[in-house]
């Protein structure tokens, strides 16, 4: 009995959608737009965060040794770091090389360095991670290295890293707020659209209740319609996202230099399932709210 009742309700839901093409289309397109904007925003956010992580991973640390440190002490320190931190490539920069680099960097003004003694420059040890390190890893590493003998300072771009982290946090907060906003708006819009459909069928509901239908029985076709509309909306949104990924973004990157760094998170099968499930859930919730309100009144 449950099977044929469920089958009948599903059949009726599909027939109802078919009989009211315009309201159904409006609901589907509304949901498609809301899901496209929401998922697109999340995808852009995911891309931006990946970009920030990649920038953060480009971590180079420089150890500045005390002025009194000799080349031999510098070499010994570099060797010790190499042994203790296999995850880093280590290079000692001697005073001569430091001066040469300085001259190269200063180009036309290099002559200003003519009177400077080599001994005025400190020895440095340059470190590069072999893999990706998080900002927290880099901070921890810098703190460890700063405690080593002859090390007077550790430079690792603290300021820009802090700003990068702040930006990342801001994006996360803005992302959560925007997602909640888009989600709420989508549910409200869907609920209102479905409420119109419910209102258009108030006679049917009245008759259903008159012949002894329970509220659950009255509600079920509308919920199924909401789910079907949500799934259709999610499918359209997904097609839009794929089009942006595959067609629009590559063309924009080719046409405009400033968009070359722009990226979206990849679309994987899990996203497809999540978007469809989310679309169905939004449709279900929207229709539940619409029908519940109608049944109450």
């Amino acid at each position, binding site marked *: 009995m449950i099977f*044929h009742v469920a089958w009948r309700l599903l059949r009726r839901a599909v027939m109802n959608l078919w009989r009211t093409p315009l309201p159904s289309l409006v609901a589907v397109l509304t949901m498609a737009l809301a899901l496209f904007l929401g998922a697109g925003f999340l995808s852009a956010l995911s891309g931006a965060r990946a970009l920030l992580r990649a920038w953060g991973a480009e971590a180079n640390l420089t150890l500045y040794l005390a002025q009194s440190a000799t080349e031999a002490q510098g070499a010994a320190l570099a060797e010790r770091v190499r042994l203790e931190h296999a995850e880093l490539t280590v290079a000692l920069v001697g005073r001569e090389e430091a001066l040469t680099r300085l001259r190269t960097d200063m180009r036309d003004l290099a002559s200003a360095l003519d009177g400077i003694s080599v001994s005025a420059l400190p020895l440095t040890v340059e470190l590069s991670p072999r893999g990706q390190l998080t900002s927290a890893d880099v901070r921890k590493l810098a703190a460890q290295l700063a405690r080593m003998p002859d090390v007077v300072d550790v430079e690792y771009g603290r300021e820009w890293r802090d700003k990068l982290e702040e930006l990342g946090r801001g994006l996360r907060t803005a992302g959560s707020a925007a997602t909640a906003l888009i989600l709420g708006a989508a549910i409200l819009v869907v609920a209102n659209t479905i409420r119109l459909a419910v209102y258009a069928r108030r*006679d049917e509901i009245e008759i259903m209740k008159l*012949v*002894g*239908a329970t509220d659950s029985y009255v509600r079920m076709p509308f919920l199924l319609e909401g789910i079907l509309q949500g799934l259709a909306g999610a499918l359209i949104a997904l097609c839009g996202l794929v089009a942006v990924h595959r067609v629009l973004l590559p063309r924009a990157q080719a046409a405009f230099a400033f968009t070359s760094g722009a990226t979206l998170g990849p679309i994987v099968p899990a996203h497809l399932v999540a978007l469809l499930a989310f679309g169905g859930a939004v449709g279900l919730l929207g229709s539940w709210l619409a029908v519940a309100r109608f049944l109450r009144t």
Partner: protein
Amino acid sequence: MIELRNVHKAYGDEPATLDDLSLQIDKGEFVWLTGPSGAGKTTLLKMLFCAEQPTRGEIHVGGHNVTRLAPSGVPLLRRSIGVVFQDFKLLPHRTVLENVGFALEVLGASDREIEERAMRRLDQVGLRAKALALPRTLSGGEQQRVAIARALVNDPAVLLADEPTGNLDPSLTDSIIELLFDANARGTTVVVATHDHALLQRHARRTVTLAAGKLVSDV
């Protein structure tokens, strides 16, 4: 079968629609409910199928105290009551067969059972040939026959009809009433609200008369 005890119904500060009404209708009876417009006939019928609740008093239908019925019990009560309205209340996008079968759908009957029972009722009201027609292609009398078939399709213990001939040509009135008498002859308790005195004179049965919400006569 139906019992009203000191039923009072008022909407806000308006004069009472029903005022201290007590009435008993036995199983298998056919009762005319009559009175001028605003007498309280429709309100009384609505209370019997729980579309309205009295302000005071008790109503019993088929052993259920409907004034104390939980919301979840209302659908179950309504499955034992058939209701016919003046404006038919048919679903315009469904065929005659689907409209009649609608009352069985909510009971969870199978498609085959729905078709068999609905066709049987359509046979009784003389509309088997129009089973696949849409309501808008039928005359008013035929639409009311469909509504009666729907009200009777699940063999209710009680049939309530609110001005069932009010929208019909007088020549069709008797054929509709005959269908209600047929249902009564099969054991269904029937209560028909009407203000058509000619109808009451042609078909003498127990007649309950209301005026301004009060019971005026019961003969």
